[in-house]
């Protein structure tokens, strides 16, 4: 049933391209962090980290080719974490 997913094999060059993108994003985030943009700095850093982690999840961890069950549960976990962070900040900001 899941053979379609199992047999999907990325090519080495595609993986190397992902690594290149990840290192490129790392240099961008380091350079941007040296420019004072005020509050924006931390948001840009977190945004770039989120983009980098999606690349790792999708290609290195094969999430793109995984079954629906795994994909939905990953999104669910990130959703739970977002809820946790959201509620805690809701609390903190009204103290």
């Amino acid at each position, binding site marked *: 049933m899941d053979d379609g997913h199992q047999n999907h*094999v990325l090519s080495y060059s595609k993986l190397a391209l992902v690594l290149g993108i990840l*290192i490129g994003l790392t240099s961008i985030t380091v350079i941007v962090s040296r420019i004072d943009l005020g509050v924006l700095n931390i948001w840009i850093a*977190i945004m770039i980290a989120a983009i980098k982690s999606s690349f790792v999840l999708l290609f290195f961890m094969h999430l793109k080719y995984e079954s629906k069950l795994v994909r939905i549960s990953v999104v669910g976990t*990130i959703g*739970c974490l977002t809820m946790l*962070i959201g509620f805690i900040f809701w609390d903190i900001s009204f103290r």
Partner: protein
Amino acid sequence: MILRKSRTNAPLSLKVQSKAVVKTSIDKQGVKLGMWLFLYTEIMLFGGMFVLYAAYYTRYTSDFIEGGKILDLWMGTLNTVILLSSSFTVAAAIMAIRRSSKKTALVLLAISIFFGLLFLFNKYVEWGHKFEADIYPGSSTLEAAGYGSSMFFGLYYVITGLHGLHIVIGVTLLSISFVFILMGRIHAERFAILENSGLYWHLVDLIWIFIFPLFYLIL
């Protein structure tokens, strides 16, 4: 031959029954899902740590920024590149095993293990410098600097320490996979151990992707 024998000795049905082979099938999907479930608990573990960091950041913003400046940005960047590269070599090793190229897989895994150890060595040097500069939980410098700085470096040691422990576990898992490939227990048909060790390693990389900006890049 069996048929001829059965004709002469015992009834055919009996013979066939004794020859029946129980086919075992591996639930590949289940093996992977189990690993993912474990990874979710890890995400929540580090997620909780990050929430703690964020909550204290909003309260002691200036102390956190001062603390971030003390950390070695280049060491952090170097370790980021090392971990990203090791993630690539692990992913490539899994691909090599799927293509039955055992030698390539072994070389790639050996490089990954080396990268993991290199990361730990850098971390050791980095922590060593901090200890020399009298920056560690409970040190007199931090006591004098105030609660915000103590909080920042406390979180720094706990989070990078816990992450370092994960690197040690990850390197161990990769080494076990390396030996299993050598023994022929991991091959193109069965590579769940390698695949799950790889998933673990990528998660450790994923967590570092967030640790790096939170500690090294804040301005």
